[in-house]
């Protein structure tokens, strides 16, 4: 999986999930079309992004706040395939990976190189981030999540393969 795109940048720290998608849009019973509500109450953020970019760059601690998976659903539906930041909130990171949205952590120096419009190439298999006019760096990613995304492995299917272990665990309690 390779992503080549110009980046869009929202240079703000602690962008919480209420900013990503406000709670009033959580009354849905499916996942479709949430991209239209991405950053709905943040015209300032909305002005910085466009759906021709697949890579969002944002400040530290992106996705803090609630556990709503609607946040990565909205980002993916809008067209993003990766978010680059210096750190992510735990639940958001998990939710993103489960939807094939790559949460890519870089150091502050690399983060500063990513200006609006900078072309980047992300290679998930090699775990490399190539920044045009800059160095190619590597990024960490959970090895299991990487395999799931690259090979289309289903996590629930993976757990169900351990049915006998689960059953005996339940038996022993």
């Amino acid at each position, binding site marked *: 999986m390779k992503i080549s795109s110009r980046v869009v940048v929202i240079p703000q720290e602690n962008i919480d999930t209420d900013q990503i998608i406000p709670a009033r849009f959580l009354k849905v019973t499916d996942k479709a079309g949430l991209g239209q509500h991405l950053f709905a109450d943040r015209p300032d953020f909305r002005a910085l992004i466009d759906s021709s970019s697949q890579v969002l760059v944002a400040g530290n*601690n992106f996705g*803090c706040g609630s*556990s709503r*998976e609607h946040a990565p659903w909205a980002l993916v539906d809008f067209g993003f395939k990766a978010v680059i930041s210096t750190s992510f909130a735990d639940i958001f990171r*998990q939710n993103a990976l489960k939807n094939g949205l790559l949460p890519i952590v870089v150091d502050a120096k690399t983060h500063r190189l990513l200006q609006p419009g900078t072309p980047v190439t992300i290679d998930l298999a090699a775990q490399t981030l190539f920044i045009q006019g800059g160095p190619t760096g590597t990024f960490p990613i*959970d090895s299991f999540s990487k395999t799931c995304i690259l090979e289309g492995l289903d996590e629930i299917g993976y757990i169900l393969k351990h049915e006998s272990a*689960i059953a005996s665990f339940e038996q022993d309690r």
Partner: protein
Amino acid sequence: MQHRNMKTLYDKIWDSHVVVPESDAPAILYIDLHLIHEVTTPQAFTGLRKRGLKVRRTDKTFATMDHSIPTSSRSLSGFDEMAANQVRTLAANCAEFGVPLFDLNSPKQGIVHVIGPELGLTQPGSTIVCGDSHTSTHGAFGALAHGIGTSEVEMVLATQCLLQRKSKNFLVQFDGRLEPGVTAKDMILALIGQIGTGGGTGCVFEFAGSAIRALDMDARMTICNMSIEAGARAGLIAPDDRTLEYLAGREFAPKEKDWDDALARWKKLPSDEGAHFDKTLTIDVSALEPMITYGTNPAMSIPISARVPKPENEADAAALKYMALEPGQALAGHPIDVVFIGSCTNSRLSDLRSAARVIRGHKVSSGVRMLVVPGSYAVKRQAEAEGLDRIFKEAGAEWREAGCSMCIAMNGDAVPPGKVSVSTSNRNFEGRQGKGARTLLASPLTAAASAIEGRVADPRRFGAVL
């Protein structure tokens, strides 16, 4: 002296729930209790249906309605059609999959993190998940409890397990004694203010120390509830006599011989002396004042007598602009429009009692709307039996049915744009309580005092009743 075999409370709960240990893949962790609600589950049930799977343990799964429901009445007629549809979808899904549901007409209905403990479902040493980040609340009982996304809700419904990597151990020691007027809410706001909204990322907190031991269970839940606001997935407090006293006799708590067996297990839960913590922090609560937030995340807080600090960066400056506050300005005395007492942070009986003690014999300031929303139907019944509802109503406050209400503003209970609210909830993010709403997070005491004065007020001014 640290020793390899010494374990923390978190280590012990983790170890006793590993079905398949962590390898290249995350551990498969067994889940004892799965709480579900209307907002983060419809897509998970759709997923189950597509796969042709059942809910594996309908005896370990419980549903309630809380986030998007009306609190003005228990009727959905004339209510927001999308929200009503979501509520009906939960009922249909629970009926189809055989999941017990505490619906709008159930005497057990309430905010998911209020009813779990209340019913005795929340038990020490257990693993608990829910598609809601404030699941950390249940950690007050020494249960490993955290929020999950909807894909994980589907995973747990299907397998009763969660793929999980172990977090780091972070010990937060609260020593000293709280002064009158200073509460658990102020302790947790002070912690978040000190370490920031990402200060606990990758960690599970264990809250310990004499100031934690001195708190009742409701107050301990307030502390654990806001663990997530510092980025920690969970917060834990080791069970003690207060925990057992709270649990004994509750509907789903173990009975008779099972209770004795449980006690023997629970006694072994506290962290071993010398167990290793990756991080530790000590806070002396004796010096704490009532805390209040001034910005747009829960880490932006100050003691109520302090002044709004100078912004350190553009984000801080933007937050102050949103809040219409100036650096150097005192928050005490700042005019307010709304007071909200409720949410999974502060809607339990002791929260309502403490707010009522301040309000009794006073009037809510003209021009201020005060909403009191009990966390559960059981809390509401008990509060009414004690006459708390009359105290609030006579003061001019609205007394509501149980639900999340103005904490998340999904149900029409919202703060109007540009208006200032003093709220006992957990998040002051931009727009959290309604588009353009300006939220100041504080304790029930501070909220009640502010309602009377129509301005941000120090509850210590009402000293005699604290």
